[in-house]
């Protein structure tokens, strides 16, 4: 039985009220959901709140799960819908940049974070990505995040977004190009001083 089957079996047990199965799924996926939420809203505290809400919603809607669908796709559909609804309410518009200023969080250090110049590069890169994300549409941000940070296939992202693969291809291309241009500008030193501060 592969991981996807184990997930599906666990989710069916959750639908029958098994909380241990839910805890198992939570442990497997909560970091992914939290990363997704963070990229979506750009704020750690709010990302953790959203993660909690998403898993509670997952639990409450467990009986809607059909084992023919990949569990991760189902989970990210719940996560995407929840985050889109939150953004539509207008509470979390464009708060991406502030967290990029966070220099005390250990998680801001990249793989080369032991060198001061590399750590600075990591923060600048984080800032460039955060600002690019803030400038995207919500669906571009969702598609980009699932693709680049969760490694999901276009087909699964299309399922999660309830969109065509062709639409997802365009969303991911536009989003990736936007981030690429931002990083390019950063490297060329043409990012506005206000943004780089």
């Amino acid at each position, binding site marked *: 039985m592969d991981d996807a089957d184990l997930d599906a079996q666990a989710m069916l047990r959750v639908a029958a009220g098994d909380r241990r199965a839910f805890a198992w799924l939570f442990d497997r996926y909560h970091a992914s959901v939290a990363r997704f939420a963070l990229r979506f809203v750009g704020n750690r505290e709010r990302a*953790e709140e959203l993660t909690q809400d998403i898993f509670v919603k997952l639990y409450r809607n467990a009986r809607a799960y059909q084992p023919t669908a990949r569990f991760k796709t189902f989970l990210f559909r719940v996560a995407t819908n929840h985050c889109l609804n939150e953004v539509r309410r207008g509470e979390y518009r464009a708060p991406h940049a502030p967290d990029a200023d966070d220099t005390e969080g250990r998680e801001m250090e990249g793989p080369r974070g032991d060198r001061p110049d590399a750590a600075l590069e990591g923060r600048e890169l984080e800032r460039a990505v955060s600002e690019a994300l803030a400038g995207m549409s919500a669906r571009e941000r969702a598609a980009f995040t699932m693709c680049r940070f969760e490694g999901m296939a276009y087909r699964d992202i299309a399922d999660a977004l309830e969109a065509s693969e062709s639409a997802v*291809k365009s969303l991911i291309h536009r989003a990736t190009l936007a981030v690429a241009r931002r990083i390019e500008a950063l490297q060329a030193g043409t990012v506005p001083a206000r943004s780089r501060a």
Partner: protein
Amino acid sequence: MSCDDVDDLTAYVDGELPPARDAQVRAHLRACAACRATEALLRDTVARLAELPAFEPSPATRRAVLAKLDALPMSWPERMRTWLRPAVLWPSAGLVAVLAVSLLMPRPGPDAPLALEDASVMELAANLELAEDYELLGLDSMADLEVVADLHELEVVQ
């Protein structure tokens, strides 16, 4: 492919194109420097994104989610699971069995004989009989008490 099909470049970098389309894009890239530059930019960006640190949520998130689930009203499947736990099921089943047996046992009517195995009932009955004998004979002296006490033995002898 032409330069207008630029959407395909990212899908090409991600390995998401069907084989035939993938070959067309590769052929176009050999001939088009502008698209090659875009492809290089996209590849570099995808590689740079892998350098971003992972976000690890606080362990408190797990506790908070489980607490929120505890606060939810129980669904029917959850209630069934709770009721069917051995710690609840066996004592409950025992209680139900005792109640069922007591309800199903035939109740004695008003004229039914007393159960012989109940010692306290038997003692009460004997004392009642003795009291009736006292009342019948009257108690004028201690000798009457002795007569009453031996009365049933006399009946047996007869």
